[in-house]
């Protein structure tokens, strides 16, 4: 996100942002953490209103979400099949003529619903920076090398057990303009569907023991330490592949379903 952060140049949040130091942002995050710990409540999702992430200031709803019983179309999700996704799209290291630079890795895991049932034959999409922390995106101006052999976009369908698997390169951390000397911990963006529309989610997967976790307002917007730890993959030597790639495992659990999945949700052949 060497983002033009706040494309709206008049937004007060962005001018404030330019002036903040890491120490100031860290102090804001620490204050929110203390206040959260004092409540004794358990939050499982990020706060939408999280001022240390400056871009959230004008982009979070101020009213609580309105409860709606899911009905009709909301109880179902779009269907994706092998006409949608080629198996080769799960390997981000073979999209160009040469090998991309960086640490080759396999990331795999299962997508489960809130009852622990596998989410079968559903779409998983990922995108990420290259090993140097640079995205193939015209708005990424971070002066790190573009890798002509790495686009950083992949897709797959989960198999009959809810398992997804990608082969890719470990992404690098990158600077962004939230505050002075702001750096994002290395991450892979994940987009996931469940069997119901209400389970749709986009998130980010992180790597173990990243020293940037404590400094990053996007990660810290999940105020509950156990909840944000659920975004961190585990190194798994059983996934690591001999003389080929290191391995990480990361399971994704969707919110509860309001409809028991039918056989017809999982039609089609196995991935």
């Amino acid at each position: 996100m060497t983002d033009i952060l706040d494309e709206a140049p008049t937004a007060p949040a962005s001018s404030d942002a330019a002036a903040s130091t890491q120490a100031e942002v860290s102090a804001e995050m620490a204050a929110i953490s203390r206040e959260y710990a004092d409540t004794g409540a358990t939050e499982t999702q990020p706060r939408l209103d999280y001022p240390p992430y400056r871009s959230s200031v004008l982009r979070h709803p101020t009213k609580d979400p309105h409860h709606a019983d899911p009905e009709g179309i909301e109880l179902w999700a779009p269907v994706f099949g092998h006409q949608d996704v080629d198996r080769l799209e799960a390997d981000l290291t073979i999209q160009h003529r040469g090998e991309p630079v960086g640490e080759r890795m396999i990331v795999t895991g299962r997508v489960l619903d809130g009852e622990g049932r596998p989410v079968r034959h559903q779409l998983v999409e990922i995108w990420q920076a290259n090993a140097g922390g640079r995205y193939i995106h015209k708005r990424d101006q971070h002066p790190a090398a573009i890798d002509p052999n790495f686009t950083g976009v992949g897709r797959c369908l989960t198999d009959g057990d809810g398992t997804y698997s990608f082969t890719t390169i470990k992404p690098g951390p990158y600077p962004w303009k939230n505050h002075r000397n702001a750096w994002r911990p290395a991450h892979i963006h994940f987009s996931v569907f469940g069997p119901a529309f209400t389970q749709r989610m986009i998130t980010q997967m992180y790597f173990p023991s990243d020293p940037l976790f404590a400094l990053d307002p996007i990660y810290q917007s999940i105020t509950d330490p156990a909840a944000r730890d659920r975004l961190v993959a585990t190194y798994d030597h059983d996934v690591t592949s001999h003389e080929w790639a290191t391995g990480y495992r990361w399971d994704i659990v969707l919110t509860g379903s309001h409809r028991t999945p039918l056989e017809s949700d999982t039609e089609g052949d196995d991935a």
Partner: protein
Amino acid sequence: MSRPAGDLQPTPGQTVGPFFGYALPYDGSSDLVPPTHPDAVRFHGRVLDGAGDPVPDALLEIWQAGPDGAVPRAAGSLHRDGFTFTGWGRASTDGTGHYSFATLAPGPTAPGSAPYLAVTVFARGLLNRLFTRAYLPGDDAALVADPLLASLDPERRATLVAAADDRGFVFDIRLQGDGETVFLAHG
């Protein structure tokens, strides 16, 4: 261990960030039907922030019934064949915060119910996705009888009803402030 065995707490969401543009939209993602389809309608509008400024880096997804009210169960959204209605599409906003889909007007999924499109909103600066509904105008009796709309005061209710225009429907999304769109929790 990032997730102890047996832990079925939901995985937290995170912002879509600014760099989804080369990853999530794809050719044809916003055309559920070809715009030249005789029954095509345009479903479009703007995404605005709390200052009333356009949000040029938002991503919207719609999911809807067909004109007959049936829930689409056909694959093929990512490689559209031009004939199969999958009911799902994806559009990013442009530099003016505007998004646009070509689709078919959904029918009621149950007799007498008010037709709507289910909408998901993602954006840089938005830490988790938002859900809402865009009801179609026209069937006033169905709109009045809708349980969700009936549970809202008139000003808030109006944020969930699209306006007709000459080619289809306009649905603006206000993330914050005056006229803030009603966003939904499905608990």
